[in-house]
């Protein structure tokens, strides 16, 4: 247990002053601007927005700068900031089918309406460091091609036929939407609360769990049905006006994972689906989220719960990196009183242990002598 201590004010003030100086680094090198961070480290900004659960690229860039590039610390800063703001309300559900698509790929259909659009991807790069980037070499402008105007239809909307793939859950408009920022977690959780928790979950943790399902711990035979990245309009109902308006756009990554399912007492053999939706360009996170979402549907689909990725209390209680870091890192705060008490206890136990050993030895010697 942590016990409050006094003192150390001067040391703390000096440590923070030192931190500010170390954060800035060599003062002869120009300081980073938020535009540079948001523009050139944009995937770090996206990750901080997603796990910080606050879409605001400028604030996320500031958090990264202040945290010296420690992304979990930056997430923490963003989460702390959001608690100071009032909640105006909620958006209408975004329509990812109307996304201004920047990338869309499917691993299940070669030819699909709208095509396979690679967009700005690391895929098919050779992962060789480029020494030229040590400078600021001039770049060719992106190649352009005529836009066919073809609608980029979601794979889930194509696959619906024949009942081979499960439908989206039926919509009940009157049902309140779960919000883990307002209501403490309670298990078992509904899928809306699970998805909200996963959307802000730590990418590394979810990635590892997703990988575990591929290696056989709750194998779910997944295919990347579709991944799409792009901007969607955010519509909000304005009570004074009596109608919804678009207040801006956000970039999202959506992943539809399609999973072979042999059927159970609850559902016939079909393809089931896991879903991922994350702020910004965050493909790995969206894929991991969709695999975890599918694994966590085990009881809904009548599957045996045998693996960590299927255990919702395990996954959802530990995927938040702000909570995790808070509890792990609190161990470095002063525990002096606590430790003193433990020291006394261990000394006493050791004294009893050795006294008993000496006693037993004496008894044995006495026994042997008697024999």
């Amino acid at each position, binding site marked *: 247990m942590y016990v409050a201590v006094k003192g150390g004010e001067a040391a703390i003030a000096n440590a923070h002053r030192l931190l500010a100086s170390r954060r800035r680094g060599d003062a002869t090198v120009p300081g980073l601007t938020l535009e540079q961070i948001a523009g050139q480290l944009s995937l770090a900004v996206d990750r901080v927005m997603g796990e910080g659960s606050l879409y*605001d690229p400028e604030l996320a860039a500031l958090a990264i700068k202040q945290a010296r590039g420690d992304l979990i610390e930056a997430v923490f800063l963003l989460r702390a900031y959001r608690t100071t703001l*009032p909640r105006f309300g909620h958006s209408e559900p975004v329509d990812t089918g109307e996304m201004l698509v920047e*990338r869309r790929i499917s691993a299940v259909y070669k030819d699909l309406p709208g095509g396979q659009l690679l967009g700005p991807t690391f895929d098919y790069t050779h992962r060789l460091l480029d020494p030229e980037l040590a400078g600021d070499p001039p770049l060719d402008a992106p190649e352009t091609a005529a836009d066919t105007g073809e609608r980029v239809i979601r794979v889930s909307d194509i696959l619906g036929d024949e009942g081979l793939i499960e439908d989206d859950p039926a919509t009940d408009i009157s049902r309140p939407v779960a919000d883990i920022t307002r209501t403490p977690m309670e298990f078992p959780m509904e899928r809306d609360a699970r998805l909200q928790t996963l959307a802000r979950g730590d990418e590394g943790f979810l990635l590892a769990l997703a990988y575990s399902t591929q290696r056989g711990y709750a194998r779910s035979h997944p295919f990347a049905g579709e991944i799409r990245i792009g901007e969607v309009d955010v519509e909000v109902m304005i009570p004074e006006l*009596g109608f919804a308006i678009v*207040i801006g756009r956000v970039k999202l990554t959506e992943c539809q994972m399609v999973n072979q399912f042999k059927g159970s007492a609850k559902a016939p053999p079909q393809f089931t689906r896991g879903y991922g939706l994350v702020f910004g360009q965050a493909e790995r996170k969206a894929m991991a989220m969709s695999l975890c979402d599918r694994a966590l549907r085990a009881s809904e689909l009548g599957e045996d719960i045998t693996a960590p990725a299927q255990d919702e209390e395990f996954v959802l209680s530990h995927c938040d990196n702000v909570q995790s870091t808070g509890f792990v890192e609190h161990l470095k705060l002063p525990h002096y009183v606590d430790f003193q008490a433990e020291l006394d206890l261990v000394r006493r136990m050791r004294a009893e242990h050795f006294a008993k050993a000496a006693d037993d030895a004496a008894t044995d010697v006495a026994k042997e002598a008697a024999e």
Partner: protein
Amino acid sequence: MTGAGHQRDPRAAAADGGGMAGRQRRLSVLAKAPAEDLLARWKQTGLDPSVELLRGPESGLVALRGRIGGSGQPFHVGEVSATRVTVRIGSGEVGHAMISGRDVCKAQLVAVIDALAQDPAHAEMIERDIVAPLEQGLAEADAKLRGETAATRVNFFTMVRGED
């Protein structure tokens, strides 16, 4: 933009003279437009009404909703920063604005333009000199992105197997 599915409030519709769809489009275009483009267009009009702040400007959060599986039950993806403001201009019209982000000046300008556009004396000018060009600018930016994306489209070929 989609939004036709929302319930109309008859009082609100009556209050702006039945121009609900127009106002919805206008506020949406202004919210999506880059702040510097909006300010440049505004300055060119030379309009300068007296403005009284009725509420805000205030920054806060909007909970962003998605749908399970893309089209199922709604769920919360996270929150988006937003700024809202309500103004009254000298001629008495009230304007509202809500934009994503924390740009207080932009939000206020959107609300002022919303108020002015309800005055028939200014409506045409605002449409011609502010809303229409901004909407075109947004469409051009989208078209540029679509063109760049289209160049990365994979074209598959079926390989001839050389059996005949």
